[in-house]
């Protein structure tokens, strides 16, 4: 890419950047320690706000001058709340599972004193002689952070932090290059859309650029509706400017005048942080009229979704932006040609846009050198479920499922056995152990019946029932179906009823064939991605875990001991300890009472099967067990 230097743009940007750098340096040159705390939604759920309050309170109480900064999510969600302390003379040290008590000690003993409280250390951010660094973690061998690099390292509400770390340099560079060259650069990088479908981004930009009609729109699809996925949330909360920068570049490349960032209503913090970021960008003339004194004008508005999964589908999203119910319509014409208000509209996922600045900055060849033959770059996964290191992971395309789950995620907790991984949300499928060595890219998983999708990965172990999980997904898609196409509206309902019967132990063996047949019909007869992929979880579980379906139907037994109608809790009299009353006290419905010998007995009539007693029974006794079918309980 050859830059024909445009002095006005270059100098406007230099001025903004040098002011930001001065501000950033002020933070570090004062000689004060700096405390950073992750307060993204995952941190907040773990209690980060209380820790933040304690840190601020303690710093004030001790008359210290050190700044306490809120940052985003580093991806180690299992270790939240996380605090990073930068103290001159020490490496930057990261602390995990911080609670208000530990926070107080950190301030008193490390900031005020000189004891880095090694017992709470998670890892250092850089190599040093004092504590192991995050780079020494086994997962570091597999991870390659591109779009997650800033996450957890900068304050997402401070545009200066972003600017000082190379932010908006790609925009300044792009504005000095003809738009068609930007499109060409993205095309040559072979970036494919990260929303799930994997359509080549450069090609989409080219189509939209060529399409007649004005004004054109650029839309960032942040309607991350897949339950179990939170990559886009983390990026919008931790590094919102990277998405905005990518979007402005996209707008410039296709000649758009307006943009929308569509964020789910369930992500209030992402909404807030994107809102703040937009305001800051506008103030510095990185957004709005004549951006950086160029002749390109582009403005972005944030649009809050209202809780409809189907709005992740681009045509439904358009309907929603136009103030209508989110019901998809037929394509073609594709939105790139005829979209919002009938004008050419470019749709890109949050992650896709976050890659743009890196491609412009490092060049297409750099990006294309990462990943596999047909899928370039890195992939971001949200690891959740029965895995030790839940959180975010960014790895090069082509990494195998086994590496992601066992090396990055450190495997299954509690010594349990891996059963399946649910990948791609309600549109994806459940893959068994035998598929673990498949490299993950856009195309590799489709033969196995799943898809990479947007990157949600839920790990399931031996305690998870595969019939129940497919029922769960179908219940979700059935409820979220907009109702336009009959096969989707009624087919998913019929399938759900069959699955409901099976988990209640009332299924019949011919249901299994009915399910497969209906699945094919729903797929064939639906207009949008929701219906086309809704049966995937059922199809993959039928393919790989048919024996579980059969056990439910033929024996009334749930092999994973999960389906509540098919199990019973039972206290083994020979193991129950007479002096212990742990289960009696925790039972939420008072269904457990001691008998004459003080052996505890569960009243099966009262029991709601919540499992609290099983958790409460001390491990040295381990007297509570689950039995299936319930008739196994001795009378």
């Amino acid at each position, binding site marked *: 890419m050859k830059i024909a230097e445009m002095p006005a743009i270059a100098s406007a940007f230099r001025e903004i950047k040098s002011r930001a750098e001065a501000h950033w340096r002020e933070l570090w040159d004062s000689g004060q320690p700096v405390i950073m705390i992750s307060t993204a939604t995952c941190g907040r759920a773990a209690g980060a706000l209380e820790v933040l309050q304690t840190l601020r309170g303690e710093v004030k109480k001790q008359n210290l001058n050190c700044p306490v900064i809120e940052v985003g999510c580093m991806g180690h969600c299992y270790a939240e709340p996380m605090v990073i302390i930068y103290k001159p003379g020490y490496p930057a040290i990261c602390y995990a599972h911080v609670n208000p008590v530990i926070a107080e000690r950190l301030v008193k003993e490390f900031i005020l004193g000189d004891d880095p409280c090694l017992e709470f250390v998670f890892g250092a951010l850089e190599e040093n002689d004092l504590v192991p660094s995050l780079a020494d973690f086994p997962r570091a061998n597999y991870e390659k952070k591109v779009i997650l690099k800033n996450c957890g390292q900068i304050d997402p509400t401070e545009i200066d932090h972003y600017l000082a770390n190379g932010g908006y340099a790609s925009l300044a560079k792009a504005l000095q290059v003809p738009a068609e060259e930007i499109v060409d650069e993205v095309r040559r990088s072979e970036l494919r859309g990260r929303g799930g479908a994997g359509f080549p981004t450069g090609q989409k930009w080219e189509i939209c650029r060529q399409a007649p009609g004005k004004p054109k729109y650029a839309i960032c699809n942040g309607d991350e509706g897949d339950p179990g996925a939170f990559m886009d949330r*983390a990026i919008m909360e931790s590094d919102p400017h990277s998405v905005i920068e990518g979007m402005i570049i996209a707008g410039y490349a296709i000649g758009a005048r307006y943009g929308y960032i569509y964020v789910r209503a369930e992500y209030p913090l992402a909404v807030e942080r994107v809102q703040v970021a937009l305001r800051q960008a506008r103030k510095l003339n990185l957004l709005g009229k004549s951006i950086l004194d160029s002749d390109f004008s582009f403005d972005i508005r944030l649009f809050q979704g209202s809780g409809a999964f189907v709005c992740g589908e681009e045509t439904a999203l358009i309907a929603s932006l136009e103030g*209508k119910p989110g019901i998809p319509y037929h394509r073609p014409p594709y939105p790139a040609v005829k979209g919002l208000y009938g004008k050419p509209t470019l749709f890109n996922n949050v992650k896709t846009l976050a890659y743009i600045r890196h491609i412009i900055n490092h060049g297409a060849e750099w990006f294309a050198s990462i990943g596999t033959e047909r899928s370039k770059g890195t992939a971001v996964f949200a690891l959740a*479920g029965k895995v030790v290191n839940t959180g975010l992971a960014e790895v090069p395309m082509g990494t195998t499922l086994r590496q992601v789950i066992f090396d990055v995620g450190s495997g299954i907790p509690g010594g349990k056995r891996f059963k399946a991984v649910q990948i791609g949300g309600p549109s994806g499928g459940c893959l068994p152990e035998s598929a673990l060595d498949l490299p993950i890219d856009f195309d590799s998983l489709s033969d196995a019946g799943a898809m990479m999708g947007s990157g949600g990965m839920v790990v399931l172990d031996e305690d998870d029932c595969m019939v129940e999980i497919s029922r769960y997904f179908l219940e979700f898609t059935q409820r979220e179906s907009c109702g336009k196409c009959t096969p989707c509206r009624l087919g998913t309902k019929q399938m759900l009823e069959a699955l409901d019967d099976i988990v209640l132990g009332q299924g019949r063996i011919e249901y299994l064939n009915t399910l497969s047949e209906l699945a094919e019909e729903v797929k064939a007869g639906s207009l949008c991605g929701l219906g086309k992929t809704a049966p995937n979880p059922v199809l993959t579980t039928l393919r790989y875990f048919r024996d579980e379906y059969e056990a439910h139907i033929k024996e009334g037994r749930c092999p994973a001991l999960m389906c509540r109608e098919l199990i019973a809790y039972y206290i083994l009299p020979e193991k129950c300890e007479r002096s212990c009353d742990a289960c009696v006290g925790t039972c*939420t419905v008072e269904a457990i009472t001691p008998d004459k010998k003080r052996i505890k007995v569960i009243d099966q009539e009262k029991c709601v099967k919540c499992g609290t007693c099983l958790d409460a029974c001390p491990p040295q006794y381990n007297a509570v067990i689950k039995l299936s079918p319930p008739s196994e309980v001795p009378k």
Partner: protein
Amino acid sequence: MTELAPQETKQILKKFSRKRGNLIPILQKVQGRLGYLPREAMLEIAEFLNIPDIDVYSVVTFYNQFRLTPPGRHSIRVCLGTACHMKGGYITLDAWKRRLAIGRGETTPDREFDLDTVACVGCCTMAPVTVVDDKPQGKVEPTKVDGILLAFEWERGKKTKEGQ
């Protein structure tokens, strides 16, 4: 509340232009103020945007976020995302139902609590999650449900005492 609805709605409408595309943002603002969308407010909005009343109603009933009945003082949202479900979110939901003696989408008779589910709030690593008054709380199992309710009760007791 319903008597005030038209005025409150009018206040909010002043900040918007009469474009159909503003319908959802308007509904969100009005619900943010009133807590729900009473009929009077919807009629006001339809008139403002010059669209049939039924169009407003169809949008309100299509999206999960909008509610037609007044909320409770405290909102309880049980997350039923994949991870939460597999870690027992449905058991947590049952516990809430049992303790509050109401079903999904209902409000307690004393208007203290309303109970609903949410598709996924994106803190799957803290599963099972319940969002209590906009604050996501991690690892909410049946015993923690009792704990949260106890905390509210204690809070209320303290306030009554102060009031006396």
